[in-house]
């Protein structure tokens, strides 16, 4: 008998592709949440592989807080053009203008929480019955609890105490009218797996992930990029630092790390040596012990 074994990365890839095909089989109108960050780039890459040579059968959905790094938007538009997908943008600014949400005030004001309303409105507007996301279980303790196929009720809420059984590779996408699902194909990937996969598959990522010079300031021990949307407190001063981002979100809540890594190999070495999690630089998780769970219950991804 010929012994057959696959590496962990191949196994994870196969699992993700299986889940993506399962989404196409079970839902009528699925959207792929695309933020321009590495995780959503990997998910779209997997989706391309899953349906190749056909195009991705999902629309790409970007929830735009208006507080983006310009590099991410440039990357997003070029990427969409390259893969020939349809891009739908849900704008948080629009939700604010319509009075659906009220903007936070103060120094740590962020539109991160407001995204939830925009996301749910957009899902309702386009009648999406499924939103595919690049969330991973190793990121955060509430995410570590979530199923691949995660049910949302008609108000977009997640009920963590009453999740459905999910045995083997059987995914249950049954739902009532008005409800939808969030699906996370790379649930079982770690930050390291994502970087290894990017390296292995030679996937393009935004320049923000590589080391560069940027004006920045320190707040609560986290290095934040200086942008027009951030007000400085007294005593905070802007300095040019050599840094890169481990995760990319809204510019108001994503911290940077000092780094000289300019290639994927160097980034991988840095990730291997890291003693803090990537979300250690995310201000949005530090608001309370259960910040992620609370946001997820309301419909955050």
């Amino acid at each position: 008998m010929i012994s057959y074994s696959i590496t962990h990365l191949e196994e994870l890839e196969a699992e993700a592709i299986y889940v993506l095909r399962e989404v196409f089989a079970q839902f009528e109108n699925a959207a792929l949440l695309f933020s321009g960050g590495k995780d959503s780039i990997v998910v779209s890459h997997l989706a391309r592989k899953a349906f190749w040579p056909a195009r991705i059968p999902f629309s790409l959905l970007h929830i735009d807080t208006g507080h983006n790094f310009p590099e991410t938007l440039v990357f997003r538009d070029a990427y969409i053009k390259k893969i020939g997908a349809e891009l739908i943008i849900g704008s948080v600014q629009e939700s604010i203008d319509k009075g659906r949400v009220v903007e936070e005030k103060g120094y740590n004001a962020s539109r991160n929480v407001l995204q939830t309303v925009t996301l749910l409105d957009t899902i309702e507007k386009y009648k999406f019955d499924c939103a595919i996301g690049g969330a991973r279980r190793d990121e955060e303790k509430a995410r570590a609890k979530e199923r691949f196929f995660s049910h949302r009720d008609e108000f977009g809420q997640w009920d963590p105490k009453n999740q459905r059984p999910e045995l083997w590779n059987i995914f249950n996408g049954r739902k009532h009218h008005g409800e939808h699902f969030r699906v996370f194909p790379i649930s079982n990937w770690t930050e390291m797996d994502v970087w290894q996969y990017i390296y292995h598959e030679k996937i393009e990522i935004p320049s923000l992930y590589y080391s560069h010079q940027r004006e920045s300031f320190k707040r609560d021990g986290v290095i934040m990029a200086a942008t027009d949307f951030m007000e400085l407190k007294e005593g905070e001063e802007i300095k040019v630092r050599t840094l890169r981002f481990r995760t990319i979100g809204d510019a108001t809540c994503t911290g940077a790390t000092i780094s000289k890594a300019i290639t994927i190999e160097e980034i991988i070495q840095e990730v291997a040596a890291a003693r803090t999690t990537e979300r250690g630089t995310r201000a949005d998780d530090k608001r309370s012990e259960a910040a992620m769970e609370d946001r997820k219950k309301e419909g955050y991804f």
Partner: protein
Amino acid sequence: MTKELDNNAYLDMELLRFTTAGSVDDGKSTLIGRLLYDSKSIFIDQYEAIEASSKRKGDDYVNLALLTDGLRAEREQGITIDVAYRYYATPKRKFIIADTPGHIQYTRNMVTGASTANLALILVDARKGLLEQTQRHTFIAALLGIPHIVFCINKMDLVDYSQEVYDRIRDEIEGFTSKLDVKDIQFIPVSALIGDNVVHKSKK
């Protein structure tokens, strides 16, 4: 060149998925916390977070179970409600751990976690022996066709590391599992709280 080698070594790793099982308060979450802590897979910010919340609850030690009990209700009640997944790697292998709940009303969540596992660690409290829920979980693991089961006789520190207690529980379990169809069954005495025989070999 070494960089290239490192990457290839990483790419060649195998994946092992395993699950914990066993009755309420037999120490499943603590065992996983200990495994992650002693194999240095806990990040500084995660450790600081559980250190702070242990202190808030008035514990005089760092409660490693808080690492996997990620939901608000779980932390408040000190129990596991749903499966939590954790990830770590050794130089040879990648691991996916499913930490499952012990309470009988959450057995369905245990089944979800166990269904994708190739190995089940079933915890047994050395003071209590083989309980109904331990039997139920063992039976489910056998039904799901998990090929390898390891019984961890936990809390050995509370029975003074008694060989007699260990042997008695082992006999009891062997009597029960003789009726089940499992390829490979092993036994290990451990103390998850202290970290005896989890990553480091016991000196007792």
